[in-house]
Structure formats: C-alpha cells, structure tokens
C-alpha cells in the first residue's frame, strides 16, 4: 500500500515536471490569472526578450485594482474615461498586452468583470486539484475550492507566461482543524480572523495550510473562499479546503468548467484528492468553534484580533518586547487608548467588498442586518462594492441593492476598491473604517486611514450603530 498523502502532497506530486537533486521542482501551472497592476513589467520583459506566452489558453486577464467603482458607461452607453492618468495607463497596458499575447481578456464593462479572485471561481476557471497563480497575494483564496493557489511577484508572472511553470521548493504542511458548531452571529470571516489571531501574522510562514474539521465542512464555498483568502494574513502562501460535494455543486454548470463526460471524469479525479487517513502534517493547530466570537481588529496587523466584546489591549501586557513596541505604534496610529471597549469605537466609514467578502452570500448577510434600518448620522461614507458584475446582477435580482441604498449605502461597480485604495475609493486620514477587507496595514485604505477588519454582518451593524457593534444585538 502506498504511503498516505495529504491533499497538498497529492496536488504537488501531480504537477512536478522535473525535480533537481537539491529538491527544487519545476511545477506546472494549470491556471494563471492576470490583472493590470503586477503584469505590465512582465509583458515588457517578454517583449524585450522576444518571448511568447506558452499557454494563453490557461491564462485569463481581468482589470480590477485600479478601476473606479462609479458608473463605467455614460448615458449613451459609451465608456467613461478613467480620470487618473496613471491608472488609465496601467489599464490600457493590460487591454493592449492581452490581445497582443493571445490572452482572453474580460473588459471593464463586461458583466463578467470583477476581482480576479471572484471571477476565477465564478467562471469555473478555478478548479479543485489545479495549481493556480496570480500576481496577487490573495490568490490563496482559490484554495477554498481545493486548488493549490498562491500569489507570485511580477518576475514569476513573466516566468509563468513564458514557461507555464515555476521553480519551487515544497512547503511544509499545516492542518488548522476547526471543530464544533459556530455560535450565532459568527461567520467564516470571524473564523479566519480568529485563526489569524491565534497563529499570528507569521504563524503559517513556510507552510501550506489545510483547513479541516466540522466547521469548515459545513461552510459554503463562499465561506471557504473567505477563509482561504486570508491564509496569507497568517503567513501561509496557500490555504486548502478538501473538495467535496459542496464544491462540486458550486462548480457544476459554470461557463469554463468541465461539462458532459469531462465533468464525470473531473469529479472522479477530485474525489481522490482528500487527505488520506494516516497522512501527517508538519504542524497541527486545533481550534474550538465555541471560542470564536464575532471578531474585529484593533491594530495595524491582521493578527491584532479581538472578540467584539473585548477591550483595546495595553501594549505592556504583551510578553514579546518587539510586539510591545509594535502595539504602541499601532495604537498611536489607530488613535486608540488601552482599556477602551471595542464597542465604544465610533466609525465614519463602512466598506463592504474585497476578494475576501464581496460574494453574494456576503452581500446577503450584510443586507439581512440592514433591512429596514439606516446608517447612523455619523457614518459619512458607506459603500458596497460587489465582487463582480454577475454578483451585482444577482444581488439586484434579489433586491439587495435597494436594501443597501435605502440604508444610505452607495451601490457601486465591481473592483478591489477601498481594500487598498488604488482607485479613488479611499478612507480619509484620521477616520475609521469598518471594513470587510483583509488588511489593516498602516495607510492601506488611504494615507492615515484607520481600518477595523470585520465580517459583512458586523460592517452592516457598525453602519447602523455608528460604532463597532456586536452584530448579535442587531440580528433580525
């Protein structure tokens, strides 16, 4: 009998083209997503070296980071020019490079356009058991489908374009097992924030994490994508959730997914991928679902997580001296005083969106809280940015857009938006934002912006209360 293998080992072994004596492997890449920010220099490199794209059929290009989320067509149906000349130049570069190298390109006014990590799964481009890369660290997201997916730099983007492979060494493996039953008001986002708090921002460094346990199994694919999306926030380059019937039901019928006899063959293969009984991980972390509350961040690292019922920590309470210093700097930047109750922190901005939380289930969860309610007067800016044009359409079909606009939110066009503020959507300096995105770094949502990471339902609750709030007090 063969040695029991983990899901990660199975995917890795199925993609080794060559292995060198020092252990470095040439790994085949099944899917490559390309966006406008990390690709121009890669295409320029190919051009300079006279190289072509080896497998344009395995490559999909979508603009997302720079796009304004305001209307894209004027009243005559003509595209509205991008005001920022640098953003326009970068978007034009992708629009030019994709056809020049024979790559499928989804343009900004196509209903299929959206954030790469929403578009890939939605189109059936991202599949279980595949290797997926993109010049974006949240590529880990696609691991929610059981794909080995990870972010790469621009040199690697160029390498994949030219060779459809990467030179890689095998990572260590970690199991993060979440068992039990989630408490009321606790979503996938709270689970992954909690995991990040437990592991720390570097806890998963050098590892690929497989998320297992009854909590993960019970999650929808949207929830699993949310969890795997933030693997990078606890240091793991990739996250994985074993594909199962929930996964297959999600993928079936999507435009680029296998169909007919190919579908049956694909599912048969995907069923072989789950970690074998007796396979071992380099590290195992167990988490009890009962310990997870609706969560929120207080600092400038995603590891700075507290239950919403918590209080701003005293930096001197941390054992690690470098963490003490980091916490002091964080609190100074965040304008917070130790001992303050999290529920006493006022917010002026609400952002519902990003590759972490912009899928239909996320919008439903936020709308559920907002139904029949309005944002508080002190909340100056509240926007919903659907993850794709198709998510937007579906939400409109369900009447969710009306719930948001009635509550005082702006209903926007899809893109990365205020997650990183490359487009005009920024949080003003010194103001706070309850944000469903993935990073609370200094300046992430705009220079001087103060970010509190939360779930979609918690963002909606904060909008209603005008301050960070326990969603359980508002649940309909």
């Amino acid at each position: 009998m063969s040695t029991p293998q983990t899901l990660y080992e199975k995917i890795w072994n199925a993609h080794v083209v060559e292995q060198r004596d020092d252990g470095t492997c040439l790994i085949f890449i099944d899917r490559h997503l390309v966006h406008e920010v990390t690709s121009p220099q890669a295409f320029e490199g190919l051009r300079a070296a006279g190289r072509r794209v080896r497998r344009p059929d395995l490559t999909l290009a979508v603009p997302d980071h720079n796009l304004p989320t305001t209307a894209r067509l004027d009243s005559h149906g003509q595209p509205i020019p991008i005001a920022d000349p640098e953003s326009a130049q970068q978007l034009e570069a992708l629009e030019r490079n994709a056809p020049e190298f024979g790559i499928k390109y989804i343009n900004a006014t196509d209903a299929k356009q959206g954030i790469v990590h929403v578009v890939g799964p939605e189109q059936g481009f991202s599949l279980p058991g595949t290797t997926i890369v993109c010049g974006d660290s949240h590529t880990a997201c696609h691991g929610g489908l059981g794909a080995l997916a990870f972010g790469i730099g621009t040199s690697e983007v160029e390498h994949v374009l030219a060779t459809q492979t990467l030179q890689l060494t095998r990572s260590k493996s970690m199991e993060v097992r979440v068992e039990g039953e989630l408490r009321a008001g606790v979503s996938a986002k709270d689970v992954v924030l909690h995991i990040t708090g437990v592991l720390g921002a570097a806890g998963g460094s050098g590892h690929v994490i497989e998320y297992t346990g009854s909590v993960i199994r019970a999650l929808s694919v949207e929830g699993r994508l949310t969890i795997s999306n933030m693997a990078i926030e606890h240091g793991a380059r990739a996250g994985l959730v074993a594909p199962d019937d929930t996964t297959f039901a999600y993928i079936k019928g999507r435009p680029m997914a296998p169909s007919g006899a190919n579908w049956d063959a694909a599912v048969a293969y995907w069923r072989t991928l789950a970690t074998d009984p007796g396979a071992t991980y380099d590290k195992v972390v167990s988490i009890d679902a009962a310990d997870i509350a609706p969560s929120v961040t207080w600092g400038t690292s995603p590891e700075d997580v507290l239950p919403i019922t918590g209080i701003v920590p005293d930096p001197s309470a941390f054992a690690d001296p470098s963490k003490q210093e980091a916490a002091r700097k964080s609190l100074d930047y965040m304008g917070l005083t130790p001992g303050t109750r999290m529920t006493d922190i006022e917010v002026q901005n609400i952002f519902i969106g990003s590759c972490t939380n912009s899928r239909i289930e996320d919008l439903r969860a936020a709308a559920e809280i907002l139904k029949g309610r309005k944002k508080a007067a002190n909340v100056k800016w509240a926007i919903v940015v659907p993850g794709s044009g198709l998510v937007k359409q579906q939400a409109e079909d369900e009447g969710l857009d009306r719930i948001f606009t009635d509550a005082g939110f702006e209903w926007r066009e899809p893109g990365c938006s205020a997650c990183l503020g490359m487009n005009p959507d920024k949080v003003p300096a010194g103001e706070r934002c309850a944000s469903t995105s993935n990073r609370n770094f200094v300046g992430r949502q705009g220079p001087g912006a103060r970010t509190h990471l939360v779930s979609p339902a918690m963002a909606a609750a904060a909008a209603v209360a005008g301050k960070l709030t326990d969603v359980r007090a508002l649940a309909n």
Partner: protein
Amino acid sequence: MKAISRVEGRAYPVGLKNIDTDVIIPAVWLKTISRAGLGKGAFESLRAVPGNVFDDPEYAGAPILIAGDNFGCGSSREHAAWAMADLGISAVIAPSFSDIFSGNAFKNGLLAIVLPQAAIDRLMEVARTYDIHIDLETQTVTTPFQDRFEFEIDPFRKHCLINGVDEIGLTLKSSDAISVYEAKLSADRPWLAPNPV
C-alpha cells in the same frame, strides 16, 4: 539578473517586526508600468516621521537594512523589492521573511538573509556606528568586531545569485520536459482544458 556575491557598508537599523509591503511601498506607487524610480515612495510612512533612519545623513546610501520578524509580509507586489533596490539597498537581514517577499527579493538580486534574533540585536547595535559585511560565498555576516554570523541559503538560489542566472532562460532549457508533461496531462486529465468563454 545582476550577479551579487558581497555587500558591505552601513545598514539602516530599522528593527521593527511585521514590516509589511504597504509600508515598504504604498499602493499609490504601484500605478507604474516600469520597474524604475520607486525609491521615491519607499518606506513613505516611516520616512514621514521626523528623525527617521532613512533621512539621517549617518546612513545615507546604506546598502543594508536590518529588520524584525516577518519582513515583507502582505502583498505579492514585487514593487517592494524594486523600491528597495532603487533606494540603493542590496541586502536585508531579518529573523524571518514572508515567503513571497523573499522570492521577489531573490529574483531581483536583493539578498534576504535570515539570522536569529540575538544576531539581529547585535547587528542593530553595530549598525549605528560601523559597517557590516555580507559574503554570499562563505554565507557569513561579519562586523569590524570579530562578530561572525553564518546564514543558510538554498543552494540553487545561491548559485543563481552569484552567477546572475536568467531563471526564465534556465527553465526554457526544460521546454521538452514541459511538452512531455503537457502531452501526458492532455491524455490523463483532458477536462483540464478550459471551455472557451
């Protein structure tokens, strides 16, 4: 990639842990289609603080930076490595790096050297007044005070750095092996070919 085997000179004693890629180069600087000129935006938020090490004449032109745990965490932006190189930095020494940053650094001939926290503490002290020497051949970091710290590096990466290897050119030598793999894939998993949309 330009070859690199030695780095010597002053080092910015930064020391902080979890220096993320938004700190190294904020997103507003990513709207470029070139690799050049990003040094202007490097460490923008740290440089906004009066008396910061980057604007201290004591460290002007320092080719080394010393940091705390998990340097380069966050985004995959290679702009972080480009910005540091543009600032004149050729090596970073830290107790740990994010996986993506360390790969990006390597692709740009920027040394990402891992040393234990005790060595970092000592180097932070020396860096305030003296030069630090890094030798990739012998895998050592030394100071004028007989400090000698050995570091580990992947042999393949070491070879590429010292010889300035073009990694794409190297992989293209395996084109036939890739073709063989692709043919086997088409036979074994024909459903992997995406339906055109």
